[in-house]
């Protein structure tokens, strides 16, 4: 195919944001037009990404839709392409964006123009992250995401937004600067930053550990993993609803994606050496943040901590290096992208009405908003991982992978499933059931059409992916199998190297 489809998908939101810049936002009509342009841009981009899905060849593990143009240096080129893993993350991004725009339709009134421009630029950058096949290009997109997100949380956020957005920015930046040093080092040693060339390169074993660590710190902050997760609850709580959706739905996935795309193929030995570290951190994240979630008074904070716990399943699954584990990790990322976004959107619905996220203010919402309660129930159950929802598939596959590799890890991670039921069901009970104690709750109105349109697709997709996960797994299978094969090959080499070293020491 000659048409540069990936670049088109990256550029459409950018063009949309340029169009919005030209619209006068002084009067009501202008503001309405801005929202409409933003919405249409996102929908067009979603359709374009569906086109990717349709034309995607699921049998090969090679990168597809490749584009390559000369850029910074001979071997630092604008190189983009996708495989099964990135395909769904791109679709997830373009799928979530229209809902973000819709969710901000009436809740954002201040500087609507800047808001939409920031969101559309962010969309371009996020898609760029998932397409990039060159380390420098990846870093460029990865870091550039900070700028719009910083403004989204800082300008349109809640009361403690300044603290939250600074924390978000500085945590992520300090994590990723070390990756920049590692990237430059790789360029100096190998003379290229092209991932497709680098994945066959054997880095010196001891250097590999350092490079792996430099990349891992960056991804761990983004994921976020224990103990660098503390920025996430703050950022989530203060961000506007759509900001939380993007944060939970897409930005957190960049960490997991980075590990799959860069850490494992480039530094298999590093990944092998640090597997136990990742397991320990993942299990701590799953159990510890679940306990913290139980104690939360703020709905968004509770969901934020539950996100950390769920991302723990992703890292655990990936580092089992089994088919089930890695596919489960990828699936869990997509499923969590849907579920957490849906939860944040649901919180946004009641937040728009009462302007508080304190759990104790609510109670008895079901009596006034029965349809909302039903939607929220589906999302809560999916968050717990009830069979039939997409949450189950991800958790089950990652746990299955873990059982194959390490029984203790699997055992402790499974307790996380129980804990997630504890915090999610208790949250549901406190918000939805019970007697109405607050007069404000008495006045609540059920979902309007816009909110209905926003939440319904999530319910359908969560159940669809839960019942028929092969839709995703079929397409990611070739890429994950290839990833594991390359990994196993590298480990075999490494072990035979270790044996020969031991023999030399022995003699």
């Amino acid at each position, binding site marked *: 195919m000659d048409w540069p489809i990936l670049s088109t998908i990256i550029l459409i939101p950018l063009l949309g944001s340029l169009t919005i810049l030209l619209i006068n936002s002084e009067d009501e009509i202008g503001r309405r037009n801005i929202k409409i342009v933003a919405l249409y841009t996102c929908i067009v981009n979603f359709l374009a990404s569906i086109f990717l899905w349709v034309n995607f060849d699921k049998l090969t593990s090679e990168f597809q839709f490749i584009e390559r143009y*000369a*850029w*910074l*240096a001979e071997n630092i080129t604008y190189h983009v392409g996708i495989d099964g893993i990135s395909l769904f993350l791109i679709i997830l991004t373009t799928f979530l964006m229209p809902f973000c725009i819709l969710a901000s339709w009436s809740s954002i009134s201040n*500087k609507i123009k*800047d808001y939409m421009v920031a969101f559309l630029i962010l969309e371009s950058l996020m898609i760029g992250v998932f397409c990039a096949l060159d380390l*420098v290009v990846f*870093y*460029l997109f990865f*870091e*550039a995401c*900070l*700028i719009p997100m*910083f*403004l989204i949380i*800082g*300008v349109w956020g809640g009361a403690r*937004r*300044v603290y939250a957005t*600074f924390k978000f*920015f*500085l945590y992520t*930046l*300090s994590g990723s*600067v*070390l990756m*920049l*040093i590692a990237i*430059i*080092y790789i*360029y*100096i040693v190998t003379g290229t930053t092209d991932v497709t060339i680098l994945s066959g390169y054997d880095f010196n074993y001891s250097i590999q550990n350092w490079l792996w660590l430099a990349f891992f710190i960056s991804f761990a902050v983004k994921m976020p993993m224990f103990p660098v997760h503390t920025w996430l609850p703050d950022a989530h709580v203060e961000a506007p609803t759509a900001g939380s959706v993007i944060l939970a739905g897409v930005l957190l996935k960049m960490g997991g994606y980075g590990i799959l795309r860069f850490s494992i193929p480039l530094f298999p030995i590093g990944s092998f050496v640090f597997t136990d570290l990742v397991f320990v951190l993942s299990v701590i994240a799953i159990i510890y943040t679940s306990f913290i979630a139980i104690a939360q008074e703020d709905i968004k904070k509770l969901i934020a901590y539950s996100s950390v716990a769920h991302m723990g399943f992703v890292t655990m699954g990936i580092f089992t290096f089994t088919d089930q584990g890695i596919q489960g990790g990828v699936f869990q990322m997509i499923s969590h992208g849907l579920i957490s976004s849906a939860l944040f959107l649901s919180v946004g619905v009641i937040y728009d009405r009462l302007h508080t996220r304190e759990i104790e203010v609510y109670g008895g919402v079901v009596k006034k908003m029965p349809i909302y309660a039903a939607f929220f129930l589906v999302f809560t159950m999916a968050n717990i991982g009830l069979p039939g929802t997409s949450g189950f598939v991800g958790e089950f596959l990652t746990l299955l992978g873990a059982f194959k590799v390490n029984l203790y890890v699997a055992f402790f991670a499974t307790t996380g499933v129980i804990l997630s039921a504890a915090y999610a069901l208790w949250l549901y009970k406190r918000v939805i059931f019970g007697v109405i104690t607050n007069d404000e709750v008495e006045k609540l109105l059920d979902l309007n059409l816009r909110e209905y349109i926003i939440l319904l697709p999530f319910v359908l997709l969560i159940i669809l992916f839960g019942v028929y996960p092969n839709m995703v797994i079929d397409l990611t299978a070739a890429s994950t199998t290839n990833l594991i094969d390359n990994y196993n090959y590298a480990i075999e080499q490494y072990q035979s190297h270790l044996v020969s070293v031991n023999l030399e020491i022995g003699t």
Partner: protein
Amino acid sequence: MNLLIFTPVLPEIAITIASMFLLIIGVFKKNEKTYTTISNLAIFSLLAVLFLIFSGSVPKGISFGGSLITDSFSLYLKTLILISSIIILVVSNIYLRNINLLKFEYIILILLSVVGMMIMVSSNDLISLYLSIELQSLPLYVLASIRNKSSKSTESGLKYFVLGALSSCILLYGLSLIYGYTGSIYYNEIASNLSEYDVGILIGVAFTLAGFAFKISAVPFHMWTPDVYEGSPTTVTAFFAVAPKIAALGLIVRILITAMPTLIEDWQSILILLSIFSMLLGAFSAIGQRNLKRLLAYSSISHMGFALMGVINGSFDGVRSLSLYMLIYLVMSLALFISIIALKNNDEHIENIEDISGLAKINPVMALIISILLFSLAGIPPLAGFFAKFYVLYAAIDAKLYYLAIFGVLSSVISAFYYLRIIKVMYFEESANSFDPISKRLKTIIYLLTAITLLFFLRPSIFINFAGTASASLFI
């Protein structure tokens, strides 16, 4: 006598003659319009010289018996110096009128200082080095205190002069030691006579570098910078922040690489310390600043520390990264300073960070531009500042100075904090500030410079090749 031997220094000669000529006009024709006339003539002559350089009519070669050298590297730096001084003169025209400081001497002083800087980047022996530094500095001392009714301006001029004189002494002492131990003032002869190892020469190098460090305000010779930046008129501050730094770095690169290549291990360790301390101190001290100009002073200290990383390796990659860094730094910091000059609350120029609070509401375009510039200074991709840092880090890692690179990136994270604080004030805070409209000419310059910062990533190779060709001439 064949006059053609002077053609390599034609730019310097032309500007010298122009400044003398303009001085005469200024003295004899004192009326309302004098300043504008002289300013326009000065801008015209600088543009003419710039055109001369761009058109390739300045031949490369040495002149004055080897005292001055004209090569791609010096021409590149001269271009940067000329561009920044032209922009400064255009902006000064508007700014000085606002603050009622239309003194024609201002222009003459800038021109003379530009001549000094151009000779600095061309100097090829110790005498021309010292004389050009003095020629560059003396007008700057006067410029710092040109607002002679303001005590802060006078203070800054005095402080700059006293400390500058002290650093000149140190520098001269170092140079005389080098001369004493090598028996020559010419760079190439120094290089060949350096073979014998001697402690005296090391003291000479250390003193010389200390003198240079003062000129680029590297820690621990940075104390004058915040006060001088704060006290001087903002256009002068902008000039201080860019042109003399470019000239001094160019001079440092040339003397270290052509005169002392064999002593690399010795000057390397000095530069590493200067670089690390400058980056960290610049980053930490800026956090507490409320005055914008003081904040930018510390930010420039930090940036100089970063740029020095490029010199440390003494390699082509290093010099290229430094040349690129200076170019991007020029664009970013000039744009930022001009934005500060352009913003006025009820005819009062802004001074402190709080003065720009709520800018996003009243003038969203300017707020966006300032944010772009600040993000770029912080080195966030895809803005130009990222590429500047990228290449410098490349040079440092190539030299296996990993810890230096780590200090560099950590300091840029710390710097990000105070740059973000300015953005926070503009976007996240509401205030009753009102801002006056900005003149068209300033707007054009700001837009142009910001466009370069923003769109640099589309075709980075243009600038990189430009810097690369220039740097290559040092390594023939």
